């Protein structure tokens, strides 16, 4: 034996020989005797190993070949948002006591994770006005999908209604989960009526196009047929706008990424998931509860585990196990850092800047605002030419334009403005649009 030297393999050949002697084997291959002979010693065609120095360089080059938004102005949102992340978030989630721990099954040595999840659950309840929050799902889309399934389980009905202004990607994910369970999902327009066989109605507030929905009308529709109301909300918008608990949501879900989590090409993100207290035993995911130890000291444990797969197996509410605990920690730290004044301020900056941009663009020749409804930080404009053409021009000027939604709205572009967009960036965008 003359084995590869790696910083991640601490045993020496002498150690290995000593261990083999104890085991009574002459070679490590002997330990693989149960594997069919013909399947052993396979050739693996993989690149030769690289040192940290070499690979770090290669990855740096790979990363640099992407257009990164530290060098570009960006007006793209549509489910993933650029908000300012205070450095304190990364420093806390970068503590290896947090990130190298496993799911907190051994509560006595996991109080850090457990108490931080309890804080997260509490903060989400404050933010949303909901009664209970779980410890987080994979992302906003899967949180919405699991909420739809949960509504079917609670109501014992097998049809899910989704408003047609919900993010189309979310609608697809909801479809995958709901139909996977042999339940039905239907996309409905704002005027459609609900029948009593629907388990729930899913509404996004603000909707995919950035507009604020007439939420009471939908809540009433749902109440009339005894279904559940599921709200998909933007957590930053709650710094200004009515929270789901206030307008009567039964389940409220969100993409938690705006709460201190970087864009990172789509993940890892966080599914925020909250509901009414009466439905807590139907909730998917982890829940942390406060209790006491044998000496009467306060402490925290994972609780109501009879909902979960490792206890209930096929009768579990969901199969979810490993989720996004570290991202929930990030969101918790973010919410605590910005606090009540900070979150309101972030929301107001988004609102005023987005409206400033929308006003300026709508005055340009050939451009108009598609919806005459109140909006938060996103809005749709009608362009005089194909949005893809405009985005090419913008890209050339070091601006990432809005999302091309011309397949949904003629020459439609969905723009997003947040607190990180400066007036100068917005003015430059308007100037280039005027010239295109």
């Amino acid at each position: 034996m003359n084995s590869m030297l790696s910083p991640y393999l601490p045993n020496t050949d002498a150690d290995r020989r000593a261990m083999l002697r104890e085991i009574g084997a002459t070679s490590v291959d002997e330990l693989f005797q149960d594997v069919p002979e013909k399947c052993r010693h396979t050739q693996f065609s993989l690149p030769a190993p690289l040192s940290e120095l070499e690979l770090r360089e290669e990855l740096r080059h790979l990363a640099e070949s992407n257009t990164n938004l530290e060098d570009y102005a960006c007006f793209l949102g549509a489910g993933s948002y650029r908000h300012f992340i205070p450095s304190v978030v990364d420093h806390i989630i970068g503590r290896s006591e947090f990130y190298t721990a496993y799911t907190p099954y051994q509560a006595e040595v996991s109080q850090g994770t457990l108490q931080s999840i309890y804080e997260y659950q509490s903060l989400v309840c404050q933010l949303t006005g909901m009664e209970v929050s779980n410890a987080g799902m994979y992302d906003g889309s899967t949180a919405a999908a699991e909420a739809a399934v949960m509504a079917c389980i609670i109501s014992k009905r097998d049809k899910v209604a989704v408003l047609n202004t919900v993010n189309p990607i979310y609608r697809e994910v909801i479809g995958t989960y709901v139909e996977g369970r042999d339940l039905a999902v239907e996309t409905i327009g704002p005027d459609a009526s609900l029948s009593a066989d629907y388990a729930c109605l899913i509404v996004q507030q603000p909707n995919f196009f950035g507009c604020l929905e007439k939420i009471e009308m939908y809540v009433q529709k749902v109440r009339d047929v005894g279904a559940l109301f599921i709200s998909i909300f933007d957590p930053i918008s709650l710094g200004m706008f009515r929270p789901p608990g206030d307008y009567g949501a039964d389940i409220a879900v969100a993409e938690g990424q705006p709460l201190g989590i970087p864009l990172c090409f789509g993940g890892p993100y966080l599914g925020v998931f909250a509901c009414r207290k009466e439905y807590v035993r139907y909730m998917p995911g982890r829940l942390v509860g406060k209790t006491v130890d044998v000496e009467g000291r306060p402490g925290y444990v994972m609780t109501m585990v009879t909902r979960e797969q490792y206890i209930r197996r096929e009768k579990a509410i969901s199969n979810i196990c490993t989720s996004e605990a570290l991202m929930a920690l990030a969101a918790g730290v973010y919410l605590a850092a910005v606090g009540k004044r900070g979150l309101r301020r972030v929301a107001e900056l988004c609102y005023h800047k987005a409206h400033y941009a929308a006003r300026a663009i709508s005055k340009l020749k050939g451009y108009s605002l598609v919806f005459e409804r109140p909006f938060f930080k996103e809005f749709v404009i009608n362009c005089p030419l194909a949005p893809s053409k405009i985005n090419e021009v913008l890209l050339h000027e070091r601006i990432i334009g809005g999302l091309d939604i011309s397949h949904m709205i003629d020459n439609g572009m969905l723009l997003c403005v947040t607190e990180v967009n400066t007036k100068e960036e917005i003015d430059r965008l308007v100037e280039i649009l005027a010239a295109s």
Partner: protein
Amino acid sequence: MSKHYLLPDISKPGKIGYSLPELDVPPSELPPENLLRKELELPEVSECELVRYFTALSKMNYGVDTGFYPLGSCTMKYNPKWHEDIPSLPGFASVHPLQPEETVQGALRLMFELQEYLAEITGMDAVNVIPMAGAHGELASQLMMKAYHQERGDRDRRKVLLTDSSHGTNPATSSMCGFEIGVVSTDSEGNVDMKSLNTLMNDKVAALTLTLPTTLGLFDPHITEISELVHERGGLLWCDGANLNSLIGYVKFGDLGFDCVTVNLHKTFSTPHGGGGPGAGPVCTKQKLVEFLPAPLVTKECGRYKLVAPAKSIGRIGGFYGNFGVLAKAYAYIRSLGAEGLKQVAQDAVLNANYIKEKLKAHYHLPYDRTCMHEVVFSHKRQAAKGVHAMDIAKRLLDYGLHPSTVHFPLIVDGALMIEPTETESKATLDEFIQAMIEIAKEAETNPDILHSAPHNTPVRRLDSARAARQPDLRWEISETKIEQ
């Protein structure tokens, strides 16, 4: 922490942990009052107080960086430090998932190459890296298998078989996919009971889901027969690749007859567990299921990377392209070790587990006394005779400064102690653990009370889980805290 406190306890009106620029545009008219929020309560804390609070919390945690973490089935290996820096590179961290494809070629290339490496490692034809955890990959796999049978008009296959030693996510996933469950028993050697499989495997069965090596830490030598039986009767064979660490670089799942496998990047590929995520659970499949893979996949055409949906895809299973930051760390892991290093990983993982097995089998009951793979499962049988149970042994390990093994799983071993050392632990660390386990076995004989009351020197001691479930306290209330003050 000497005194227990929570964020509301350090919150005080007028503090903030964050600063923002002034509004630099003329303000706009606010929307109608009925859309606006009346009050918003959130803590108000300065940055220094916030950092001290969370730093104190972190000190009550045990992580892989703290010490040995032999939590069976979870593969708690060391997480290379510099891999943690990769997702923070501006070209990864500050990239929007909906940017034009030509501006994200580097990210797509990383995903494409990771797909290729995982296909090679598992012996499969195609890979989708979107699933964000093992259970998420299971969900994708079972939906794909369901779509496969439906596509062939084989609509009566409404059942999925699994073994009695399987992880809870397996049956939970089947329910999410509208399947019924059939449970195959384990024989006295710890292998699939072929008689049981033979009885249950029929034309109503869509697939057998199997963890290999099994959750008993054993490699089932009948895998070829199992594969033949399942396939002859029209079923598919899916592998829960949670235990890939023992086979990586050595054996390919594809060669063993599996049609599809889910692997856990946060286990075998050393991305940290984060206290319960983020993880990643790519689905790797043979040709027959490729067109059903979740959308999108990364392909390469004329030197350009593209996101495409497979022809008969089960659809989207997440908002974007999975946990990209996790994928980047796993990519670095594969490139750091190469084929030779990965094989050494499997060999050392198996060697370490067998060494522990050999050194402890005189002290703890070994229900399946044979060569194990990356983990070894003991039971509390000998200690239980003295009234000491698996959980007592686990809790006592905490007093020795070590993280416990997994306990009470797999369910088919009464009082299971499932120990997975991983390859990143040295012989010296293993010896220290072995010594502690031997001491504890002695204590179980001479002083069982010290085990019953363990742990003694952790930040908190055994917690009242029953009370937590009976009287749920799942959040703080500002008003309550104020009353306490």
